[in-house]
């Protein structure tokens, strides 16, 4: 009973549906001649000879460079995890316990060490799925998702991730294994994972993304991944930045604990004048500057500090705030995302 064992989450803290259109199914059924044909070794119970081993090796070494270029390290204030870019615009898939909240600021580190600003989008807290958006302009290297859910039990797979955190001299670490268990919400493989791999990608031999690393058991053989259908089922909500589910992988933000990070005083002519902007806080990240006058907060005209505090009390971490500002006589609108107090 492997499910009765304690499962360790893999994010490190430096101290560690198938909405498959039938049309598509039919297409894959007839695409055996395409370059992404299913390697025959997957349909053998076990490799039988050197040729079988070399077929696995050739497929893996062929798929690896592209897979690796899209695999990233995610650095946050309290630790690091991994992720994988799935669009040229810089959409990243990762685990919910890595982002741990929506609209959170983080840094994406590419394989070559390039650091990019990013923000978490939505997550599914009971299935350990999350999305992140790189905020710089692409195009970025990316991988394709196995949207048709073609992976079968026993298929040869490989995992990538920044085990133990980003290490430029080492690069991301690749591990081989087979898909050894398929359950509704979980893939299990014998690719060994460790802290820092959380959110990293699991690929089939063609380099298609099939899962995201989530957690491990005490035994080396127990390594769990979130299958792609969990992401595909929730895709739009994830992209919109919604917090889905009530599970253990991320805690739903509490109302009233949202934090904007600026001090204000009322202005005679109406609005609030900003007297101080907290360093690296939501207001500063949104572009608010000392001396700005805030006229409207999410469309509500502001006349007193209490009024803004009352509005904040009804909001929580990750919520979006549109500030209509007057700066040097010109109006502008700034977007801020509340952080946790």
């Amino acid at each position, binding site marked *: 009973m492997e*499910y*009765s*064992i*304690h*499962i*360790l*989450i893999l*994010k*490190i*803290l430096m*101290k*560690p549906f198938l909405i498959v259109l039938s049309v598509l199914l039919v297409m894959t059924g007839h695409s055996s001649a395409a370059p992404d044909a299913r390697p025959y070794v997957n349909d053998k*119970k*076990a*490799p*039988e000879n*050197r040729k079988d*081993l*070399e077929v*696995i*090796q050739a497929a*893996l*070494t062929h798929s*690896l460079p592209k897979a690796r270029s899209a695999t990233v390290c995610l650095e946050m204030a309290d630790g690091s995890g991994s992720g994988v870019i799935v669009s040229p615009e810089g959409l990243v898939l990762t685990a919910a316990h890595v982002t*741990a909240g929506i609209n959170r600021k983080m840094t994406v580190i590419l394989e070559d060490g390039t650091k990019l600003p990013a923000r978490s989008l939505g997550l599914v807290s*009971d299935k350990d799925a999350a999305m992140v958006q790189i905020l710089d302009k692409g195009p970025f290297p990316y991988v394709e998702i196995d949207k048709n859910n073609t992976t079968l*039990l*026993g298929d040869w797979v*490989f995992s990538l991730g920044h*085990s*133990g955190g980003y290490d430029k*001299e*080492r*690069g991301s*670490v*690749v*591990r*081989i*294994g*087979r*898909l*050894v*268990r*398929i*359950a*509704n*919400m*979980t893939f299990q493989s*014998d690719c*060994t*994972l*460790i*802290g*820092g*791999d959380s959110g990293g990608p699991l690929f089939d031999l063609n380099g298609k993304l099939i899962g995201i690393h989530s957690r*491990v058991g005490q035994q*080396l*053989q127990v390594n769990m991944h979130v299958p792609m259908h969990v992401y595909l089922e929730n895709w739009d909500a994830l992209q919109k930045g919604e917090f889905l589910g009530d*599970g*253990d992988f991320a805690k739903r933000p509490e109302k009233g604990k949202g934090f904007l990070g600026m001090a204000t005083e009322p202005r005679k002519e109406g609005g609030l004048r900003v007297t101080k902007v907290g360093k690296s806080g939501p207001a500063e990240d949104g572009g608010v500057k000392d001396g700005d006058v805030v006229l409207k907060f999410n469309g509500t005209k502001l006349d007193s500090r209490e009024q803004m505090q009352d509005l904040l009390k009804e909001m929580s971490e990750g919520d979006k705030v549109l500030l209509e500002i007057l700066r040097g006589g010109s109006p502008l609108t700034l977007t801020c995302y509340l952080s946790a107090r």
Partner: protein
Amino acid sequence: MRAEISFLAGCLLFAGHAAAQQSLESEYRLAGNQTVMAFEEQRQVLQTSSAVMLNGRKEIGYGIVISNDGYVLTKASEVITAADLSVTVDRTNYTGARILVVDQTWDVALVKIEASGLVPVVYAETSSVPQGTWVVSNGATSRLARRLLAGIVSAKSREIPASGGVGLGIVLKGEGETLEIAEVGDKSGAMEAGLQKGDFIVTADGKKVETSADLADVLKDRKAGNRIKITYRRKDEETTVDVLLAARAEMFHDEGNRNDQMSGDFSQRRSGFPRVMQHDILGNKSIMGGPLLDLNGKCIGMNIARANRAESFAIPVEDLKRIAAALMASPGAKP
């Protein structure tokens, strides 16, 4: 962030969909009997040219047969304290194995057994193979047969700096404003050299040192396995000794971080190597010391450290050949 969660909720959920859950029989998994059978050619090489290192009847590691007359390389730190070292090659157990000489930098020992007609490994031309290339090494073993485990080259070859920097294995009194020793680590170079609590360090490699910062300055570019001349004062007498340097994090028994806790048994000496290749072979620390083979059955490296759950290190064949030649040429290796 909580360290662990129970999977109870998932368990209940799955119970309702038992039919949807599929599981691969263990013999077809990566380390399973049926899967490793494809590597029978390479297993034959392990059978004849890898060595099982034993202390009494306990397996403590593996080794590489490098000559037909009984010279074997192994991981030094795993065998050095063995009271009753013997070596099994193929189906024969050789008692009275002697450790002739140790390369402290690489943690490699040259061991001699009285044997003839052994089959030494054949070295691969290069360790520079693409990541994703199959590699094979010793798995569990029985008295008569070697088993194997397979994996792939999994990251860039590189130096592994000494974890926490190198040190003598001492704790200083106070904040290090003087160099008075408050504690000497159990298996440290300082202990081996005879340093004691209450001693004052006076010079390091001939340089006068007064504070921990002075000492750190002398040590900063040194490597694990190097020796340093230390003069210390006990009562009114000054003595000079050679102290072996090692990774600071490995000399005191730390609790380990969370990644260590999920890694099972890892090698005590797992850092401070000039260059390693990395692979993902699943296993425990006692599989270290043996050969890493490619699909041609050639020795592409020597397993030197199980660093953690997901990372194993091997000495690349180019370095291994040099180490072997130097050890064989050293005075200690002469019969």
